[in-house]
């Protein structure tokens, strides 16, 4: 199904994803607050689109600033980015870790509805304000609160550990764990090519050996170790969502933008457990909807940014997207298919495990990476995008496969 008008994304910007792993991160030293990240990301995009005068609307995605930073009413920070945004429309959206995707979808809808030709879409999260053990409580808000009591101290690692355990039982532990380790290695090797990535400074020689560290259920969860988990990050990303007219207004050529072919956004029921923990059912449906709407096949995709909040989520995503049959995701990854030089490069700047996961920003970061790849400005992380496979896909997930956004992009 074609969109009723052409929509593009351009002028993406990521701040550094700050947290453990980055050399400049010191837990005991004061760090920038949420307003700093909003401003930096916003100005990063504005500077490339001729300034705030060209922006009609803004949307800011954020998951839990109300708890992490004791700050709400985030739309009111938009004018803080630039005086030119004062008294212009802005909203805040939230969908747990799928927040960024919702920010993008909101912007796309404004352009489709013709209420805006140029939308500034941001995502931001500042999570290192609390220790991980308390951060786990805050992040657990992405799930149903009634289940928190019976959940693990580290709630979401616990949820995905359960998925991993079910997968081990059904399809085997050893190979699956090796696939986790390979996913981790791919993530870090990609992150090392991206200066804003949280794992950019990682110098570990044998990444797979490290990632094979046995899980320690006494201190963490049963089936995952810390290398299986995405980072705790402070960061923001921004991108401009524009119509054709908007592109002209901001003076950017189509070759420097990426076209939005279509999007799909669906919700699972947060009160329900997955029917089969070895399947990301909602992810499968949203990708199917997007691919069908685009009128392409997954084999037309050049690259994918998927939501690897945990290595198991990455493996399951290869199956949900359709590259591997149920139970064969580990083989698919171990054969090198998802590496940056593989058949279908995944997460070319590191994904959530390597680049980082500032929860409200991730979805926008995914779009920025696709835009960078498709317009040839990904720096050292650049992969080859050919005319044969001109499409990209982002899959942004909130909660345990509940809030899903899939967007298909095309090289202009």
């Amino acid at each position: 199904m074609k969109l009723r008008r052409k929509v593009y994304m351009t002028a993406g910007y990521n701040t550094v994803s700050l947290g453990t792993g980055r050399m400049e991160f010191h837990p005991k030293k004061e760090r920038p607050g949420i307003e700093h990240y909003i401003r930096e990301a916003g100005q990063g995009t504005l500077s490339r689109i001729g300034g705030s005068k060209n922006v009609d609307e803004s949307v800011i995605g954020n998951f839990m600033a109300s708890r992490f930073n004791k700050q709400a009413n985030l739309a009111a920070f938009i004018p803080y980015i630039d005086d030119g945004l004062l008294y212009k429309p802005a909203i805040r959206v939230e969908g747990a870790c799928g927040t960024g995707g919702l920010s993008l979808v909101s912007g796309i809808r404004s352009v489709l509805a013709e209420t805006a030709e140029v939308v500034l879409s941001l995502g931001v999260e500042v999570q290192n304000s609390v220790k991980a053990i308390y951060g786990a409580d805050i992040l657990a808000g992405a799930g149903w609160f009634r289940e928190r009591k019976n959940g693990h101290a580290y709630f979401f690692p616990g949820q995905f550990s359960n998925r991993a355990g079910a997968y081990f039982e059904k399809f085997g532990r050893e190979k699956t764990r090796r696939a986790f380790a390979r996913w981790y290695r791919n993530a870090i090797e990609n992150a090392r090519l991206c200066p804003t990535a949280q794992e950019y400074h990682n110098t570990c020689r044998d990444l797979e050996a490290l990632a094979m560290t046995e899980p320690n259920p006494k201190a963490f969860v049963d089936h995952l170790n810390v290398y299986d988990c995405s980072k705790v990050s402070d960061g923001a990303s921004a991108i401009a969502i524009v119509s054709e007219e908007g592109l002209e207004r901001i003076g950017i050529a189509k070759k420097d933008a990426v076209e939005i072919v279509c999007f799909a956004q669906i919700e699972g029921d947060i009160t329900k457990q997955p029917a089969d923990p070895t399947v990301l059912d909602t992810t499968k449906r949203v990708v199917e909807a997007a691919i069908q709407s685009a009128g392409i096949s997954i084999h037309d995709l050049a690259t994918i940014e998927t939501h690897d909040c945990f290595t198991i989520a990455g493996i399951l995503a290869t199956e949900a997207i359709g590259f591997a049959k149920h139970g064969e995701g580990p083989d698919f990854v171990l054969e090198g298919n998802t590496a940056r030089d593989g058949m279908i490069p995944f997460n070319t700047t590191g994904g959530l495990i390597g680049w980082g996961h500032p929860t409200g920003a991730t979805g926008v970061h995914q779009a920025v990476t696709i835009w960078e790849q498709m317009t040839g400005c990904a720096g050292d992380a650049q992969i080859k995008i050919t005319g044969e496979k001109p499409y990209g896909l982002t899959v942004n997930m909130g909660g345990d496969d509940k809030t899903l956004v899939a967007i298909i992009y095309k090289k202009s």
Partner: protein
Amino acid sequence: MNYADKFTNVTVLGAAGKMGSGILLLTAMEMTDLSLKPENRGKQFVINAVDVSSDALLGLMGYVRAQVLKAAEKKVVILRELYKERSDLIENGEIIGQYIDDVMLRIRPTLNLDTAFDSTLIFEAIKEDPKLKVQILSYINKNSKTIPWFFTNTSSIPIGELDADAGLGGKILGVHFYNPPAVQRLVEIIKGENTLDDLVNFAVMYSKNLRKVVVPSNDFAGFIGNGHFMRDALYGIREAEKLAEKRTLAHGIYMVNKITQDWLIRPMGIFQLIDYVGIDVCQYIMSVMDPYLPDEELHSELLDEMVTKQGISGGQNSDGSQKDGFLKYEKNRPVAVFDVKMKQYVPFSDIENECDDALGQPPASVKPWKSVIGEADKEDYFTRFFNEMKQTGSYGAELAMNYSNRSKEIGKKLVADGVAQNQEDVNAVLLTGFYHAYGPINNYLD
């Protein structure tokens, strides 16, 4: 009486001190964990924190609260299980907060020694003064309303002596924690000649519940830990004094400290360790041990000189920072060494080139202790390292090998004299209690 019942009423004597506060913290948490088990519901668990200083007791409660928070954050996975029946406690933060309250509610700070008359278990962590210990333990024992067990944290006084002099009838056991008890994994357990077996069995279970490494020591003054450390320290002092014959004592202290830290790859040099423990504490421990050692003299005039004449005793400030001793410290790092003759500190920069030249180059594979301690295959590393040292031929290598051999001799003598049951126990104490990267009894220089 089962394990949990022994904790119905507990007293820690010297609770506000360095060791007492740690013992109080660990025991209060153990008692709270027991109280949360379904089978112990309704039982009382009270711990009296007895000290002579009211101000110190105030500080103690703040210390305990801060430490319980740290501990609770580390063991929140376990705490969620312990509090699983509490439907009102959902988030980690709520559970941690409740645990802190539950631990603090158990503690009763008091200046009144008589509170101990109700206790079935008494931890003694007061000053290392045999007469004072005997006086207090015997007073409690005579007036107790129950049958108290005494766990003494003495690091040097034979348990049998305390038992006999205080008339405790075998109800005393040495349970020697290392400093600080909250962090240090080692506990030495010392049975006196008449100590009842029940105390030993209980103490082992208690220590293991605290996830400590338990090493039995026989009842000889100093036990294993101080038995090795005091003699090792004396050797270091004497080596420094020998080196001073050709240079100054400041040079000698610098060189021996450097050898023991950098060439023997220890966490700190021997003089820095003496400063850390306290020059006065080392002097005192030696004076307590010495009467029990007819065949050797455990005494140093240099320690006397520093403490009595110079008024320099090392140890820590109340904020945990290192006080000046043999070495001067800036931000806890040694920067100068005390010159006894000049009665002032000489900056390292004034003497280090000369000393380092005299020592020569260490073996090529030398690494700092920090790098080595986490390595999986340390044995392989040290075999190579000491082989290289044997071939180095430098003066520093000679001093280091002599020091290592002497350290090994001290260890072996502890076994030969029956202080330690075996070489593994000696090594365990130095590895766990002193954070050495390798035990003193080894074959690296054979």
